[in-house]
């Protein structure tokens, strides 16, 4: 009885530490600026999306079902998805839109560096559900022609940013 209580307490403490670790991961992230940058190009990007009935991020099915323990891993994977595929596959010619996409991409790079620190501290474990969610996003992307897929994913950035904001609310600066 005592052993099971002790085990339960340890699991609870570890989960809290893990969750707090996740929250500490993005404390320095200025998400407001990234959101503002996207809002300025959202209309132009989404207007070019011709596949209205398809979604890449599958927000209702994929992102909303992510458990707190998987948030760090899914965030890391989706950041890599955007940086390795979406931003590279999208060929932007308009200098003003290019500036905003560059701002978002470099902000994502910074976020990835912060999460990398968490990963080195073993605070960013990737379980099966996180891997499944990442695979769904990549599969959705692969089903479309590259440029259309990249454009659609860019247009869904507000969904990703809102999800990050909800799951990584920063604690007050110490």
């Amino acid at each position, binding site marked *: 009885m005592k052993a099971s209580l002790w085990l339960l307490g340890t699991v609870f403490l570890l989960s809290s530490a893990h969750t707090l670790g996740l929250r500490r991961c993005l*404390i*320095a992230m*200025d998400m*407001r*600026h990234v959101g503002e*940058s996207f809002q300025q190009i959202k209309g132009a990007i989404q207007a070019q999306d011709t596949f209205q009935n398809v979604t890449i991020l599958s927000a209702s099915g994929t992102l909303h079902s992510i458990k707190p323990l998987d948030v760090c891993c899914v965030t890391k994977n989706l950041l890599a998805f955007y*940086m*390795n595929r979406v*931003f*590279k596959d999208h060929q932007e010619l308009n*200098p003003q839109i*290019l*500036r905003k996409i*560059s*701002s978002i*991409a*470099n*902000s*994502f*790079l*910074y976020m990835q*560096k912060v999460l990398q620190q968490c990963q080195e501290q073993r605070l960013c474990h990737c379980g099966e559900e996180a891997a499944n969610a990442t695979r769904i996003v990549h599969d959705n992307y692969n089903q479309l022609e590259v440029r259309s897929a990249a454009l659609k994913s860019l247009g869904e950035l507000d969904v990703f940013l809102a999800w990050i904001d909800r799951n990584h609310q920063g604690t*007050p*600066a110490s």
Partner: protein
Amino acid sequence: MWLFYTLIPCLLIDEVVLLPAPQNLSIQSTNMKHLLTWSPVIMGEETIHYSVEYQGEYESLFMSHIWIPSSRCSPTTVPECDITDDITATVPYNLRVRAILSSHTSAWSILKPPFNRNSTILTPPGMEVTKDGFHLVVKLEDLGPLFEFLVAYWRREPGVKEHVKIVKSSGIPVHLETMEPVAVYCVKAQTFVRAIERHSAFSQAECVKMQGETLPLALALFAFVGFMLILVVVPLSIWKMGRLLRYSCCPGVVLPDTLKITNSPQKLISCRREEVEACATTVLPSEELFRT
């Protein structure tokens, strides 16, 4: 033959050789405002234009051929560029500048090493500490949306703890505390930039003294003296004014010298009796006339 070889460079005039690349690129960054400067390119009286481009770490890693024109300085005619709006992430940025004269362009000069905005110099914030009645109010320098402030304030007495207030917007007066009378309060502040996780140093403490609830002694004395003066001066003035008005409206009558009586009243009365008897003898026949 050797003459031909020495003439080759003159025959193959390269645009790059004609227009030198800008030199001495450097960045001054204070409170998250970043200014790129370089030595001006001089070509006689010609107006040289400059073009500035940047490349974040993302571009340098994933698409190194992409350089983005600076929002304010492509082109510019001065040898400096405010790149604050271009440096929007806390990663190293490559920056390059070239000179332009008509259709000729120089080679690119690249800033070495790349610039990261977390190297900006953070200075203590300017602040204005005021009293609004009994309220201690502070107004902080407006440094932009990236800045938050930590304001420390305390009553200057031994053993009193320091309070800390986090202020997220600048330029607007912030109420710190309701002060107690006859006390000295001190305030100091520092900035915090969440994007680079750094604080500035604290500013010099500014102290204000809260006055007591009873009037200071000097003020009370002054008020008493003034009151007494008013109590004396006003009636005196009224009386004087009254006299002035009376004499100006109804001046006193002055007898001429010939009518002035110098004898005593008894002699005047006895003189009058003699006159009456003389007047009575003279007057009688007239009365007898009236009777008949």
